[in-house]
């Protein structure tokens, strides 16, 4: 009797472990089999080779730069060196550029209620 009980327990343990590992296995297999080599965000048009700041700075601090130029324009009347209108010349789509990361981290943008940026 006792031996049979032990067997049952062992089988239940295995089944549970398999069920728990299914999602992980699915992830590993799908990751390995995907051949998605597209970059996460769209590269800008090739004829523009330089951004207003280097990539590393923009990746981490673009919001500070945007706030700075906003305050310059609104509060100090200094317009024109860097503008949001200029950003859209290279980054031609907000769905393929801004929204990509912002959707993932659920940081919602309300710039485009008032500022024009192509979809």
């Amino acid at each position, binding site marked *: 009797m006792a031996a049979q009980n032990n067997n049952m327990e062992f089988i239940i343990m295995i089944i549970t472990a398999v069920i728990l590992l299914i999602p992980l296995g699915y992830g590993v297999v799908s990751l390995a089999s995907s051949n998605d080599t597209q970059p996460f965000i769209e590269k800008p048009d090739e004829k523009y080779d330089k951004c207003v700041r280097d990539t590393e700075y923009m990746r981490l601090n673009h919001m500070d730069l945007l706030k700075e130029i*906003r305050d*310059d*324009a*609104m*509060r*100090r*009347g*200094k*317009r*024109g060196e860097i503008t949001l*209108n200029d950003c859209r010349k290279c980054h031609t789509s907000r769905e393929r550029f801004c929204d990509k990361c912002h959707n993932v981290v659920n940081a919602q943008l*309300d710039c485009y*209620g*008032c*500022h*024009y940026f192509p979809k």
Partner: protein
Amino acid sequence: MERREFLKKSGVLLAGTACACALPLLPAAAKSINVDSENTAGKKWGMVIDLNKCAKDCNACLDACRKENNVAMHGDKRWDIHLIRKVTLKRKHPAESPEISVPLLCNHCERPPCAQACPVKATYKREDGIVIVDHHRCIGCRYCMISCPYNARFFNYRENHEWPNKDNTRSSHGVPESCNFCAHRLDKGKKPACVEACEEINAKALIFGDLNDPGSDVSKVIAGNHVRGIREDFGTKPKVLYIGL
């Protein structure tokens, strides 16, 4: 200390503390904000509207403003926004006068009540005299609309779907709007869109320029004519002045 004396002294103390605490609540005069743009630094923008030259059926300035600033027109007067609008006036007393057509816009008051009322300093006066609302900071409380004695502010109750000038912003719903003398154009050295439109049709009823400079067009017109602001008795010191009002 007697009971009576104690009460007296504590009363005085209480009143003094109350006064000291209330001091910061005294209405502070709205401070102007520095501007750095070389096209506007040291200037004081103002406008003179010559009503003798403004034709009653002409809407050139209104159309130019709508196109430049993406002003919403919903076709319902409850929601429509007007940065500049025209009204027809007729004096009945003491004698009947002929009708005049008057363009109305934000007067860019030298002492703007809207800027003093704004609880978050979203509305402010720039050093060059332009009264402007920063939509990034505005919380949509509409205090400025109530405090403006000229009804110059309009609220975006609805989302605006017109966007003719993609290089300029349009207003999303939830913020008030008023004329800002096309600050974005002035900062780049251009004239406001309405003034340009009025010059284009050769009416030249809107004269715009620097009030600080005695040689500017607008200063010469003020010197040579009898000009009045609307309801100057309010003490708001409007910088939009009228000839023939």
